[in-house]
């Protein structure tokens, strides 16, 4: 079974963790994740500047490690990211900003990638809200 997973909430929201646990369970069950798409506030899950309190789970780090470990296609919506100050090196240079908070394994791309993922997957599962 091919899954496309869209995340609409930041790393500190329970739904982001739920998406991560779902994705882990999907791979453990022998399924494929064609793409992870981070949209709206979900782009914050890809920030490499998040500092989680020591006694709390660092979901942003867990996402990063999960995507790297399984070499998944982790796409962050570029329009949603830019308006929230999430920039990779290319965008920081383009808009002459001082900070870069988005690096590999994440890739900035357009909303078309969500549509494409939905077309290629058997199931699109969205996580957001609380």
């Amino acid at each position, binding site marked *: 079974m091919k899954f496309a997973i869209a995340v609409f909430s930041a790393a500190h929201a329970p739904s982001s963790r739920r998406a991560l*646990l779902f994705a882990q369970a999907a791979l453990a069950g022998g399924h494929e994740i064609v793409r992870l798409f981070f949209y709206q506030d979900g782009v914050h899950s890809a920030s490499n500047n998040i500092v989680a309190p020591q006694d709390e789970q660092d979901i942003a780090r867990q996402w990063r490690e999960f995507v790297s470990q399984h070499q998944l296609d982790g796409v962050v919506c570029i329009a949603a990211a830019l308006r929230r100050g999430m920039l990779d090196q290319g965008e920081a240079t383009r808009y002459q900003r001082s900070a870069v908070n988005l690096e590999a394994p994440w890739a900035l791309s357009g909303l078309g990638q969500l549509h494409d993922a939905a077309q290629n997957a058997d199931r699109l599962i969205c996580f957001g809200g609380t």
Partner: protein
Amino acid sequence: MSTLHVVSHSPFTDSRLDSCLRICGSQDAILLCGDGAYGLQQSALHTQGVKVFVLAEDLQARNLSLPDWAERVDYPGFVQLSITYDKVNAWL
């Protein structure tokens, strides 16, 4: 065409669950997760004949008891439900 409706908001803070129940078909099911697990306290839920599932960790975290008309699932169970039903509609 069957749909799994995923509800993560408490029915005591908004009307998502009510809206969901209104459009639920007889082949559909509802998966309660997060604060949506409080939906188990909503008697309207089991009078409709729609299958109801709840994410086990959210049931446990809120110390809710499982009614006989609902079924608990873990994450592998969640994945399986998303396959069993033709579509998954999350009530973000």
